[in-house]
């Protein structure tokens, strides 16, 4: 009962898992697109890659709210704008930074490591 009063909005464990997963995926995309961006920064990204990245960003947006929002006014890439490799790298790096900040702030507190049956 005590623990309930201490943590009014406890972070659900699956949300942390999601953040960990997203962080790894965005890092993967970041690494891949960085390679492309080094040789052809102004090449528009193809629709297939862009859709995959947008799906991940949309998922990340559900976690990165309020102070953790990576870029004001940005939600996902618009396909018709034909974002370039360098655009995508820049945005992904912002998402990575904010995801790290979110994870740091929501690191498991010692109390939450105690199982409910302890």
């Amino acid at each position, binding site marked *: 009962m005590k623990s309930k009063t201490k943590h009014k909005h406890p972070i659900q464990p699956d949300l942390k898992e999601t953040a960990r997963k997203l962080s790894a995926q965005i890092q993967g995309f970041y690494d891949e697109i960085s390679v492309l961006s080094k040789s*052809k920064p*102004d*090449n*528009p*990204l*193809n*629709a297939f890659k862009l859709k995959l990245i947008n799906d991940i960003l949309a998922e990340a947006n559900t976690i990165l709210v309020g102070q953790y929002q990576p870029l004001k006014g940005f939600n996902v890439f618009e396909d*018709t*704008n*034909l974002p370039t490799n360098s655009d995508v790298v820049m945005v992904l790096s912002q998402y990575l930074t904010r995801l790290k900040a979110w994870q740091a702030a929501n690191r498991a507190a010692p109390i939450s490591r105690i199982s409910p049956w302890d």
Partner: protein
Amino acid sequence: MALVRPRLNDFYGLPFTQEEVDFAIPFLDDDIPLYVDPFLLWKSPSQQDQSLHTALISSFNHFGHLARMGKEREALDAMVRISECREVGLGSARDKRGKKIGRSTAKEILALFNLIPQIKAGGLEHIEEIQLFVDQIGKDRISDVTCSLTKSFLIDFTIDQCKRHGVPINEVVLDGVFDYAGKKFVSEKLLLPANPNTKAPLLLVPKRWLRFSPWINYDEYFAAAHVKDGAIPRDRVAVLHYNRANYGMVQTYVRKKERAQADCKNDPLFKPIAVTSAKRKFEEIKKLPTGKSENADKRYEECVCQLLASLLYPQLDFATEQSRTDSGVLIRDLIFYNNRSFDFLKDIFDEYGSRKLVFELKNVREVEREHVNQLNRYLNDEFGNFGVLVTRNPLPKHVFKNTIDLWSGQRRCIIALTDVDLETMVTVFDSKQRLPIEILKRAYVDFTRKCPA
């Protein structure tokens, strides 16, 4: 308002591009600048095409046989009759009304069946050979003879394709259909598409049969034929006479061409320029000064025309390049057929009635209001209310505002493509990660976002 270089599908508003269909889309007031090459039927892996070639040769040799059997008049009539096939509209006759050969030329052709022992004994193996024996016989004749003698197949092909693509067909009477079994010409009442202007029936021709010139042709034979002692005469008629007396030469040439059949490919109706060439063209555009100094405007127009026709293919078929004068100024336009083959093209067709896309070229440092108005005046029922200004730099604020006002007041959509857009188009043309037409779409979407809600 007359359509600019109308094609059959444009007239009926059918949304297919040349790339998507198996036949060459006929122009309504012009011929398709390609020819049927019977060698493509001969070398085709399809048994159907091979059989058609066999039937073609057999029918042609039959006329020679008739002449030799004393039915020269009948053979002559047939030869004249098959020498022109108006319904297919191939070649370079502007008014789509080619002429038949004269009886004297027909006589010369039939004389080959008596004159040359090998032909007398076994007939011709390739009808293209007659170009090497008879004057006045060129690629257009070979193509017409082929079409005339395969007309029955072309009729079936046309009906099938029309059903598949929804091309309207009407009941027509077609004369001069060669009946292979009865070896005679008959008239048939058929359901075929017709030229809406002239009401003349049209036959569609498979793209796979078309070439700019036949694989076996006089010019190449003349250039390649070589006799050690220089016995080959150099003028055309003398060469033809020489060939009649030296059939072995012709046979050797034909065998050589048969051996090289793997290189014989049909020619596409439009061949986009290569990526390297596109890059070179754009580099040239970038270096060109604005204005008219050193004819920079002309060169700009030429380069942009070649570039855009290739970059926007196959989503947009290039129709024509045309010049017009507005307020004493010569203006160059590029016109494309809008076949709604891309979501954005469908949007502008529905929204602005854009049946054809007009691109106006302006090699100026800064587009002025008058330039926008010139294009605006040109937009009409045929082009719809959508136009593109291809220019060097982004529109100045006040000119851009003018385009927004035109949209607000008259629902006219005039967008600009700049050097930067062209560069992106060339980049994606090279990388293949995107379609160059998506850059045009981006310019359109950008414009619509800035229009008042």
